[in-house]
């Protein structure tokens, strides 16, 4: 009853909402300072960049929700 507003949204629209949530998280992570991301690592390398890890994760999720 409380979510009756969403009954009007077609399944395509629902998918778009889910994909947008994933995309917002992916983009937001890039706003974090590198100093925070690398905290604990003395000599950071590319593999230590956790922003790249998150980006890869979210792209895979977006593809999954686009397909299914």
């Amino acid at each position, binding site marked *: 009853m409380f979510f009756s507003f969403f009954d009007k949204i077609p399944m395509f629209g629902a*998918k778009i909402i889910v994909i947008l949530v*994933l995309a917002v998280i992916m983009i937001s992570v890039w706003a974090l300072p590198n*100093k925070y991301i690398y*905290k*604990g*690592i003395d000599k950071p390398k590319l593999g230590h960049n956790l922003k790249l890890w998150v980006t890869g994760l*979210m792209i895979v999720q977006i593809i999954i929700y686009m397909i*299914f």
Partner: protein
Amino acid sequence: MGIQWLDMLIIFLYFIGILVIGFIFKKYVKSSEDYFLGGRSLPWWAIGMAIVVSDIGAHEFIGGAGGAYRFGFVQGNYDWIGCIPAMVISGLFFVAYFWRAGVYTVPEYLGRRYNIWIRVIQAIVWTLFMIGLTGILFWIISIFLNETLGWPMYISILVTAIVGGICVVSGGMGAVVMNNVLQLVVMFAGGIAIIGLGIHASGGMGNIVDNINNLGPEFADHFKLMLPTNTKTPYPWTAILFGLAFVLSPAYWIANQSIVQKALCAKNEWNAKAGMLWAAVLKTFIPLLIVIPGLIALSMTANGLSDGDRAIPFLIKELLPIGLKGLVFAIFFGAMIATIIGLASSAATMFTKDFYQLIAVKNKPDKHYLLVGRISTVVVLLLGILISSRGKIFENIGIFAAMQTMLAVFQGPTFAILLLGMFWKKANSAGGLAGMITGVVAAVLMFIFSKQIFPGYADPFLFIAWWSFVVGLVVTIVVSLFSKKALSDDKLKELTYSSSAINE
């Protein structure tokens, strides 16, 4: 049952391996920090693998495959939208701050941020939940081994408790994590074997799809990840997004001690963050190992199983050859042991640090609390055994839904106060306590009157999670605005997120 001496030998060797890990790590346990947090020395890859095993264990394999058998692909949401975003947020923000604060438990963080009562209430609730979950897992083990080997229930439970108990009591959290690492490797291997043999026996994935589609119109949505709002399953997309992805999942990945405790074992902050993200990478593959076996069982039996939770035992019995059958038995048995010892260790940590050391017996030497930690681990296992004797009550509603229902009562309000505690400096002691209590009461009332409030939904636990979160959030904000700030600015800087703090 088709179990041969080679299978039994493999199971026996696997148990020996679990015991050896416990004895190896015993020499590293000199203090309560070694016992509860592995001496804060573990690398990201081990932490990530341990987190995944803590989460999925065998209950997700069996309960998740059961869910896929009943509801289809939508079950995959529990590991994708229902995990990955929350794990990213947990790893990059909450786990990092918990690690910086040097806490042993999530309730300890809440105690520092709000007050001692929130810490004690949270610790009691989580400890009771973990004891309950341990009982359910013991019960699942007995179903699994009764279905596949014909073992009496009490034999399965006792073997699990003794092997797992020796491992965790000897080696502490370090042994638990290394046990989990071993477990994940063989779990992936066994899962792939079941899928490969199942697809082969079914004549290919196309046949599986055709067989399920031919079962009737009620199976038409079995290959959809998102279901419309009028679905009769517990998983309409609105519930998945608002209840699962926005509330239950973050609450689980941020507040669940058995998950967070693994990350707190990290040797530095980067390893804590990376451990959680590595777990998210591994979790991406888990639905394939869980959902597809459920669909294979549905296709092979034409919906002929008495209970969806019997899908995995059915596949093992029907598909696996001698030797491999023993290995997969060992994997599932080991997965259950790994999850149970993780829960027992976390429950013991909270009892020792958030209750015993905090209130009951203060200022004793560290060796005393190490001993209490070991004894309380054994007590948790014994209570789990006791609860497992009543486990039959969960049979009719499915294992997975039963556990989610238990979580939904208090996870929404807990997430609300954690979220505000981390990101809103004005949240204070009175607000947090009021928000948590009213949120839990609201959740309980919604469960009692669920038929009137959520007509048409067989099990509306995801909606209840959302609304109890909203109640907890609103009450915490309102009460905090109308009451005094309790913490100094220096304390708040240490415990709350701010753009200046993350640069330090």
